[in-house]
């Protein structure tokens, strides 16, 4: 099995400590366990499709699995992209079916699943949308549509986070995510070379 390079940015650690300090250890563990399920879903799907996972990056906006997907078909890549959300959904269903002993874990998996399916790149939903459109109408059309949907979605999501922060009178640990989404929106509007 090839080596997987794991890299975590300093900002990730800061956010981790910040989150734990303001929300406590239990919510942190809940989120991390749901994120682990999510990444395991991606990892298993990539391995199943024969793609090589080269790295695992942890950043302030989440975790990213680096892999070489260039040889995957649209269907396989779509499967790999949606596998993370699928794993979260499966974990939530299994937990609920087992009498729901950890409702927070169930909820965290569902929220992570729903969040990742939002049509905003680089979230899974945005990438899935791009793949679907590229599959149906060609890569150029897919890229064009995904870009604008992603820009609008990121802006809407950033506004939603701002509203949540304003409404809750704080929750400033959402700030990095909000700025990240704004940056995504700008980047998608400007377009990457």
């Amino acid at each position, binding site marked *: 099995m090839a080596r997987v390079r794991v890299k975590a940015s300093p900002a990730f650690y800061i956010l981790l400590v910040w989150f734990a300090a*303001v*929300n*406590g250890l*239990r*919510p942190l563990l*809940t*989120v991390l366990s749901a994120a682990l399920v999510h990444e395991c879903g991606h990892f298993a799907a990539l391995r199943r499709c024969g793609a090589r996972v080269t790295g695992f990056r942890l950043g302030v906006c989440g975790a990213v699995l680096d892999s070489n997907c260039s040889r995957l078909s649209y269907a396989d890549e779509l499967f790999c992209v949606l596998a993370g959300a699928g794993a979260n959904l499966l974990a*939530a269903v299994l*937990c*609920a079916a087992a009498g*729901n002993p*950890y*409702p*927070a*874990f*169930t*909820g*965290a998996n*569902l*929220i992570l699943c729903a969040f990742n399916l939002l049509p905003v790149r680089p979230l899974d939903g945005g990438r899935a949308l791009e793949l679907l459109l590229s599959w149906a109408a060609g890569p150029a059309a897919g890229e064009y549509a995904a870009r604008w949907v992603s820009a609008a979605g990121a802006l809407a999501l950033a506004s939603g986070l701002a509203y*949540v922060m304003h*409404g*809750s*009178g*704080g*929750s*400033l*640990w959402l700030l990095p995510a909000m700025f990240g989404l704004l940056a995504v929106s700008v980047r998608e509007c400007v377009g990457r070379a």
Partner: protein
Amino acid sequence: MTTVHRYGKRPAQHRHKRRQRQFWQFMICGTVFVALVAAKLYSPRHAATLRRAISQAMDRNMDIQEVFASVGRTFAGENAPAEGLREVWNAVFLPSDTDAETGQTVTETLSGLISETLSGDAAEPPAGDVPENVPQTSSENVPQTSSGDAPQVRSGDTSESPDTLTRHQWTETFGNSTAFTSLSEPWPETSGAAVIPEPSSDSSASDDTRPEASSDDTRPEGQASFLYTGQNLPQNVGMEQVLLNFDYQCPVHGEMTSGFGYRKHPIDGVERFHYGVDIAAETGTDIVCFADGVVTATGESTSFGKYCTVEHGGGFTTLYAHCNRVTATSGATVHKGDKLAEVGATGQATGPHLHFALQREGVYLNPVYYLAG
């Protein structure tokens, strides 16, 4: 001539872009730093306000664990979707993540969809406001109880801070239904482990339910002893006794173990403001509704444990916390004396008791005035 890197990158260009990015990051950080220093130098008052606002925003957080749990319960079919949605809404926008008992950051859910946030000054009194530093205000400087219906401030009361005056002005808006009690009374007449009597007769608006002052000055162990003024009171706290325009009764009968005001927290030992009263009773004892109203929230939090809140009209809301079981359902109309919950020790509690808090339009009032029959 540009040397092409073997991975196709141009190191020189890459370095240039990186330096450019670092330059702009440095410039932005430097500008913010200089602006903050300038603001602190030229307008320390605004800088302090800004610092306090940021500090408060840092303290306030949604109850993320409760959000997850609500979604999980709804998904598992334990909650109706509407109930789940309401719980999520409450956990995000009206979190009760910190108990009023602990005096830490609190965002109360005492009035349904109205959020009343207590934090900053309310949660942690400023350095000058800690009891040890509170100047022992003479009784002349403290507003005295007016005997008439109309609120009055003693004429000699000229040394009050603007905060105190503002609070009085606020109280005056209550009109004839408001009367002052002495703010110099750190612990109302029911000092020590006062026993809440059985309700011999329910109070009404026309009754003068204010208990008689007692000379007994013994206080429960850990109860802070100092004078309350507008300066050392947290925000959103009123020491006035407001006459209620509806019938009410004591929600549970037992021994009052902790009163309204500063006290040493029984768990962490830190002196903090206690925003309600604690009435100890055996686990499972019925907690009945204080007055007619509508149950605006039921839930569970790490600090309050299982709790429910009831809105009574006129801006009054009550909180019943640390319950063993909440039997009332959110949205239900309840009447005075109806069972709401059972006494327990859920959340941050050292034993079975009811934490009972009373608010009027976001201002915490001392419930003890309304507990004695």
